[in-house]
């Protein structure tokens, strides 16, 4: 075991987990409580959390990083391969990159964050190299640049054959920086005092214990938000916990209407080939899961190629809605050509997820602060709209995680180091503990697995989450609200594992409400948000973002206009501003 790390506070593998979680809860003895203090609490140990923790520690702050899984082997970070890097010495031109993104984003990217991500990506690449992460290099020793899309932007690729898993190298650097790492603890509730966030409460996955973290600044790096779609295992842990607890604490959330539209092969869900392909020998009987890959053109049930995006709109056509349009027109299934013949492709792979970096906490300033004092966010948990309504900048997801993690880590540490000693009221701690343990203290109720299935079945159909219309969104919303009002308060956990499932379910249901309400609110179509009843972009009214916050127990939606200097030139004809036509326009 690496020094400074621990598994739920106990040495691993000595913890007798299989026995331990049978004690406590459901009328049993009260859970043990552990209290830890830090200047900066980082929640989530993907690329954003690792950068945040390292950079905060470098400022002199005492940092705790806590992860629901095992930092370095959890979240989406271990899956990524391409790291966007912008370097004028390589002939890159900022104006060109910005012009490309501004257009592919359909003009709703937050240009401040797009630019800062591009500008600072190279410095973060250098950090990674200094920490021991290896990138593919050519014979000249220089990193190989992968132009994606050709002639526009460049990404570098991790070299895992000679360098080892980069995510685990990051973990080692976190530990070397003096950060205390606690694995396998789910954070479920934020602590608040005098309007500011002052830490969080969580529990280990395998025992009915409670962990109270008192921190002067807290950074949410919990990654993306999904509804546990079976076709995308990499996000099974990413269940909207961050935005849900932040919303409950009063923070503002952004970008829930822009859905991620990854599709996947029916027989080999996303991520499995990546995982099995990590260098070890794959057992013979599992080779079938590696699949023969995907090709182009994909065809519909009638054998016709499905329409592709016009050149220049984006290379990343798979994050658009073409397949959903085909399904809606009655032309499913969709097939992809492979060396083994055509194979079926299905949608909804990332159910519950927004387009990368669209949804998450609203950045209230340029330092990754949320709208709540003491609370910051970075990586996929920050809704900084760096890619707007369409993800077209390859490798910018992890580069963005490194960039925002750095900004948040430095800002949170500086804030914490300016503060005196923090005393958090016992009443607030008791409230949070009660909320965290509640599903385990009920004597009965509904199983979180069942409610999760209900939610998936409500949100999964293409005609709800992807091809949207007011009446269908309303119908789904009334079901989701029933779940929220009648099922969530009765979620029932029989052990710590199910306590996790209960909190995940509660958070996903809240996020589904956000998603449906935002989709209803945005009465236009743009990028990955398609409204059948409003099939055109509406620039005069909707060059805007949709922000959500709780007011008097209700979910309030707020339109935030985009600065006019970021608008497209409205004298240019609509068809030129937007090369892609939505069905029904």
């Amino acid at each position: 075991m690496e020094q400074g790390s621990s598994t739920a506070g106990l040495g691993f593998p000595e913890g007798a987990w299989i026995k331990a979680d049978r004690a406590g809860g459901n009328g049993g003895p009260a859970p043990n409580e552990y209290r830890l203090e830090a200047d900066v609490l980082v929640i989530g140990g993907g690329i954003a959390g690792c950068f945040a923790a390292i950079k905060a520690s470098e400022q002199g702050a005492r940092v705790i990083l806590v992860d629901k899984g095992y930092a370095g082997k959890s979240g989406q970070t271990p899956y990524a391969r391409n790291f966007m890097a912008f370097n004028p010495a390589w002939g890159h031109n900022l104006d060109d990159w910005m012009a490309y993104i501004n257009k592919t984003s359909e003009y709703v990217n937050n240009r401040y964050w797009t630019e800062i991500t591009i500008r600072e990506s190279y410095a973060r690449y250098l950090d990674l190299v200094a920490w021991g992460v290896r990138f593919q290099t050519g014979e000249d020793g220089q990193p190989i640049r992968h132009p994606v899309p050709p002639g526009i932007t460049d990404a570098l690729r991790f070299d895992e054959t000679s360098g080892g898993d980069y995510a685990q190298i990051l973990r080692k650097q976190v530990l070397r920086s003096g950060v205390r790492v606690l694995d396998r603890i789910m954070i479920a509730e934020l602590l608040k005092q005098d309007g500011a966030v002052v830490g969080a409460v969580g529990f280990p996955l395998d025992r009915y214990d409670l962990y109270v973290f008192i921190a002067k600044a807290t950074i949410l790096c919990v990654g993306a938000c999904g509804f546990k779609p079976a076709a995308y295992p990499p996000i099974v842990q990413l269940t909207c916990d961050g935005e849900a607890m932040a919303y409950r604490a009063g923070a503002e959330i952004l970008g829930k209407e822009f859905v991620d539209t990854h599709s996947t092969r029916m027989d080999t869900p996303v991520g499995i080939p990546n995982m099995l392909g990590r260098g070890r020998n794959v057992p013979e009987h599992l080779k079938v899961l590696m699949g023969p890959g995907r090709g182009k053109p994909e065809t519909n049930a009638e054998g016709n190629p499905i329409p592709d995006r016009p050149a220049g709109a984006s290379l990343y056509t798979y994050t658009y809605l073409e397949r959903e349009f085909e399904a809606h027109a009655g032309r499913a299934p969709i097939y992809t050509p492979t060396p083994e013949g055509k194979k079926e492709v299905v949608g909804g792979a990332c159910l519950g997820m927004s387009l990368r970096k669209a949804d998450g906490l609203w950045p209230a300033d340029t330092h990754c602060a949320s709208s709540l004092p003491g609370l910051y966010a970075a990586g996929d948990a920050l809704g900084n709209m760096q890619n707007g309504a369409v993800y077209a900048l390859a490798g910018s997801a992890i580069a963005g995680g490194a960039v925002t993690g750095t900004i948040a880590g430095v800002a949170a540490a500086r804030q914490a180091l300016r503060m005196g000693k923090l005393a958090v009221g016992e009443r607030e701690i008791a409230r949070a503990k009660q909320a965290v343990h509640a599903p385990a203290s009920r004597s009965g109720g509904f199983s979180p697995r069942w409610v999760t299935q209900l939610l998936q079945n409500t949100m999964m159909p293409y005609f709800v989450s992807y091809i949207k219309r007011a009446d269908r969104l309303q119908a789904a919303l009334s079901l989701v609200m029933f779940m929220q009002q009648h099922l969530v308060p009765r979620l029932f956990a029989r052990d710590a594992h199910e306590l996790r499932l209960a909190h995940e379910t509660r958070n996903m249901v809240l996020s589904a409400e956000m998603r449906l309400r935002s989709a209803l609110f945005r009465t236009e179509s743009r990028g990955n948000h398609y409204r059948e009843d409003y099939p055109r972009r509406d620039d005069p009214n909707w060059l805007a973002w949709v922000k959500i916050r709780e007011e008097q127990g209700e979910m309030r939606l707020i339109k935030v206009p985009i600065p006019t200097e970021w608008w497209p030139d409205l004298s240019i004809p609509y068809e030129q501003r937007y090369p892609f036509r939505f069905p029904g326009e």
Partner: protein
Amino acid sequence: MAIEGIDTARCNGCGACVLSCPADVIRMDKDAKKTVVRYPQDCVVCCWCIAECEQDAIVLTPIRTAPLFTAWG
């Protein structure tokens, strides 16, 4: 398709699969110094455990099974 079990003859109790499983399906049995499949119904077939296990002790079937969807649960 899901995890079916651990080949206890091969498992050396290193714990790598427990730490990497994103769905907390596998747990360590301290007494036996072996891992056990504790929550198979939550396995998402991500294959982290397969990729981590140097003993090839994880038994996972590539055949897909869908859980029952019920009126209450």
